[in-house]
């Protein structure tokens, strides 16, 4: 119990966004905005003290990840991917990361996004992918991630609703954990499931130290 050394979970892929009106009622009707925020915040607290977190920037999610990483003294462990196709419309808050990887633009929006997603998802030997809220983009990243990393754990956090809920409901029982649907204590949920994915015994549940205000 005295073991407070955090165990490595391996690099983690995050796919998260906030559903917008007019982009599919199926996502909006179940979206849990507070849940999306709490899940993203908890994931940073669990992963960043020891491991890399890779994600495609999203205007609402990026500032949250950036601030959490700065406060944890772990800004070096965040890798954000952006397509050069969107360079002119990306808000400044998404450009403050130390590791920002620009991927070449395609001929249009969807081909640009696909190039970005393939490069991002192929960039690491991920142990787990975490899918939070989201719309069609999160669903696409889920399928792409599964193809690239057939052995990685797939955590669709159904309680955050939206695309994560759609994915969770589609997957057969036996491969998904019921906590993803009902557990709102996200930090302990991620600690448990990511440790399992890393093939280690779960680490002690102590939260990492925080730095500064």
């Amino acid at each position, binding site marked *: 119990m005295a073991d407070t050394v955090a165990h490595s979970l391996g690099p983690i892929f995050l796919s998260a966004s906030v559903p917008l009106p007019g982009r599919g009622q199926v996502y909006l009707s179940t979206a849990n905005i507070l849940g999306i925020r709490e899940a993203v*915040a908890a994931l940073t607290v669990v992963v960043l003290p020891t491991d890399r977190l890779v994600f495609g920037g999203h*205007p609402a999610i990026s500032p*949250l990840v950036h*601030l959490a990483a700065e*406060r944890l003294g772990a800004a070096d462990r965040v890798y954000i991917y952006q397509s050069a196709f969107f360079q002119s419309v990306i808000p400044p808050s998404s450009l403050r990361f130390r590791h920002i990887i620009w991927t070449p633009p395609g001929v249009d929006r969807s081909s640009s996004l696909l190039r970005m997603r393939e490069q991002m998802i192929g960039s690491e030997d991920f142990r787990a992918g975490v899918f939070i809220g989201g719309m069609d983009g999160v669903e696409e990243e889920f399928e792409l991630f599964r193809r690239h990393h057939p052995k990685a754990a797939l955590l669709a956090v159904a309680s955050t609703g939206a695309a994560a809920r759609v994915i969770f409901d589609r997957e057969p029982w036996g491969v998904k954990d019921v906590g993803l649907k009902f557990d*709102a204590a996200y930090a302990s949920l991620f600690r448990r499931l990511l440790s399992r994915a890393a093939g280690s015994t779960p680490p002690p549940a102590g*939260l990492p130290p*925080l730095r500064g*205000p």
Partner: protein
Amino acid sequence: MVLLEPERQYVPGGGYSATLLATLERQMTMLGLDPKTTLRTLNETNFHNERAPFLPVAAVYFGGPHQSVEATRIVAQLRAEGRFVLPVVPTLLGYSTQVPAALAPINGMELVPGDLALQHPVARLTEELGLMRSRRLVFISYKRDESRGVALQLHHALEARSFEVFLDTHSIQRGDEFQPMLWDRMGDTDLLILLDTPHAFTSKWVEQEVARAHNLGLGVLQLIWPPPHKRVLGTELCEPVYLEAKDFQGTASDPGSTLLGTRMEEVVALAEGTRARSLASRKTRVITEFCKQLEWHGVEVVVQPSGLLEVQHPSKGATYVLPVVGHPETTLLQQIEDDCLKCGTHPSQGCIIYDPLGMWPKKAAHLEWLNKSLPTKSLAVTEVLTWLTR
């Protein structure tokens, strides 16, 4: 709110649950809240189908000679989540035979003959639901030359509802000491109201305050105007309220314009709802995470109706822990010391746990200093492991 009462059919007038609900609804109306939209009541029949996992939950179990399988199951589930369950019984004699086993370690509340409206249990519930937290701090984040009229009007309307309002923080000169102090105050706040006018986000302070609020888990209510201005990209985690031209006295785009009184009342009611939801998620951050950490180590925790957690500490034995949303105050330290003395326990068997996120280093140092001098300690939720092995 969850109302469990296996005896319901044996008590006239729909049982104690109906009386309690009527009193609670009256109190909420007095606080300016519409119970129809802000309170959801669950019981044995609809708990599993209608429960929304992210709303604040408080439960009451009316005990007696009869028990029901479903009520017992629900109690066990709520207890496992570390939720507040208040057992209320006609008499404390033979208490443990009147409630499910999961409630036996919790101190029950006895019905008082003169309290026909059940004011005592209702008072405890309103506190638990975050309606009566003694400190009600709110930040207003805005750009003065675009929205000063609404900002001032909000300030007055919120003060009238017993909020302590932080406004015009931007006008104060920001020195080295000011910024961490401001972030520290924010960590003790429940709510940020963002006035999203066309150039609000050109102020870096507005942007930073919103990011901090999300990081801390505060509720963020976003008022968006004047039409056709749309919410700023990247604010999708806030709760949006679009204000229309007809909501204003005068021209919506005039910086000095104010809202119609009825619309302002609606906004304040929405702010109460946003605050209650964020309090629930911040409680989860502190209390549920704390309970799960202890469960992980096989340490038993019992949530008492007073709000105290009774923890079987591996070396200290029974310890009383008060989890707080926001920062510990000396009055709370005194309260837990008093509670310990009432229970016949030494005050050193009591402590407060809190989330230290965003705390001003000087305040953290002050708590450390107090810890050296007082028997009752403040413990950051991040230090639980160390505390368990101490």
